[in-house]
């Protein structure tokens, strides 16, 4: 049996292939390791072996990037079945997906694409999250998205949309602080006001990452250090919600492991300091 939501606190990093050996040799002090679920939809081999080694030493956070919860296409049953098998195999501490869509008419873009935030979309998302949670027999976390375009037909803010989704399905939220900041700049809103729309009880995890600045737009690359405004927003979120399991997310131009560990230590310091004032 899988525990519904094991208690987890502290900071983790993504486990990426170039770091496998060093992580297993050093076993750095971390609260958890995160992997992308889809990279482990395999029967066996080196990747699965690495995940099993990681699981033996750390709680695991499974982060999905391909389920496409918000597609008008039918939910991919085979994909969900693979996720279920992985969840049973790994018994992760956390399972998360994104508030996005990625496929239409059977064609997959393998990206996290933005949704119009209206009642129609909310009803669809509630239905999908219910189905995923009943299939996996556990609560999942749904993450706010970074985006570069906004739909005209979006009556709700993303925070209000996610808060409603959490209330109606009982799912938790994964607050990606960098995504919130990226969107605040790209679309010109106050990210602190967005935090005020979320219920503290719903926040099950936070993400921190770096982004790129291109012309008039921030691009969520997960390829650089967390920037100062994002650290500040994280402080605000910790004050408001208390400390939550927090991931340093780094996927492109992977640096030395020590860089990730330093960022994780910085996040831990902030969470402890700010949560004490919460």
């Amino acid at each position, binding site marked *: 049996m899988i525990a519904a939501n094991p208690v987890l606190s502290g900071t983790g990093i993504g486990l990426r292939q170039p770091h496998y050996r060093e992580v297993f040799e050093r076993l750095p002090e971390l609260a958890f390791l995160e992997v992308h679920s889809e*990279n482990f*939809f395999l029967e066996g081999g080196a990747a699965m072996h690495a995940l099993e080694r990681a699981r033996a030493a750390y709680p695991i956070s499974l982060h999905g990037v391909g389920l496409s919860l918000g597609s*008008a296409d039918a939910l991919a049953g085979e994909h969900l079945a*693979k996720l279920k098998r992985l969840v049973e195999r790994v018994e992760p501490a956390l399972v998360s997906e994104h508030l996005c869509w990625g496929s239409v008419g059977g064609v997959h*873009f*393998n990206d996290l694409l933005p949704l*119009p935030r209206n009642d129609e*979309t909310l009803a669809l998302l509630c239905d999908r999250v219910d189905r995923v949670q009943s299939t996996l027999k556990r609560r999942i976390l749904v993450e706010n998205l970074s985006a570069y*375009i906004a739909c005209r037909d979006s009556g709700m803010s993303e925070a209000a949309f996610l808060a409603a989704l959490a209330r109606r399905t009982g799912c938790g939220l994964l607050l990606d602080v960098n995504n919130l900041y990226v969107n605040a700049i790209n679309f010109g809103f106050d990210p602190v006001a967005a935090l005020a729309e979320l219920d503290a009880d719903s926040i099950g995890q936070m993400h921190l990452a770096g982004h790129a600045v291109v012309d008039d737009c921030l691009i969520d690359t997960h390829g650089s250090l967390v920037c100062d405004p994002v650290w500040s927003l994280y402080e605000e979120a910790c004050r408001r919600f208390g400390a939550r399991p927090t991931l340093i997310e780094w996927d492109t131009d992977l640096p030395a492991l020590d860089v990730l560990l330093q960022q994780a230590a910085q996040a831990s310091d902030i969470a402890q300091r700010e949560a004490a004032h919460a």
Partner: protein
Amino acid sequence: MPELFDFQSDFGAALRDRRRTPAMQRWLAGDADLVDRRMAIYRANMVAAADKALSSAYPVIRQVVGAEFFHGLAREYQRGTPSTSGDLTDFGASFDAFVAAFEHTQSLPYLPDVARLEWAVHRAAGAADAPDWDAAALGAVQPEQQAAIRFAWSPGLAVVESPHPVARIWTIHQPGFDGEFGVDWDRADTALVARDGFAVVVTECDAADATFIRASLAGAPLGDAAATTLATHPDFDLGALLVRAMAARLVCGFTL
């Protein structure tokens, strides 16, 4: 969900073809120029995802043609054969046919077979781990029953036959290869792809052995597979092949 489907159809069409961007303007906030610039970000993400997935499955082809050309190959392949799964491990199964037909790879006639070999390696890398098995059980089979033995080959095992030296090409492009880089381009290779623990190994395989393994993989019992092989390779040595296969743990069980 008709409205959401229409939005996503228009968005998808604009991702796949920039000329379709104006048609999705009605769904989006911001002027046409802004939407055009922002859609370019999503379009680049889409191609980057294809490049990353294909680079992972086809690292040798990427080295042979170079990263920049490979990026273009990924874009063109995706254009004709878009992903149909949220799991990119499945993406690229028909890359061999694509490079066989692609105008700008005609000067590299061995590329399609290298692609077939790399796809077999990619599948083997994620195949189930071979179960522990005591080969001594094979010795207990009565002589009159031996022809009926159906081998269970280790998961991921594959034979790739080519008129080009594909096993050699694959070998010299492996990370850490420090041997002689020469290639005899007139040689035809039959490559055997197999797991060795968690690693995938590619070895050159004798044509007779390959014929037997292929027949056996297709489900033929030992007697039939051996007869098929001997018909074209009269010098086929079944005993020697089985000794090698057991030693390399290519066989992980059998049924009668």
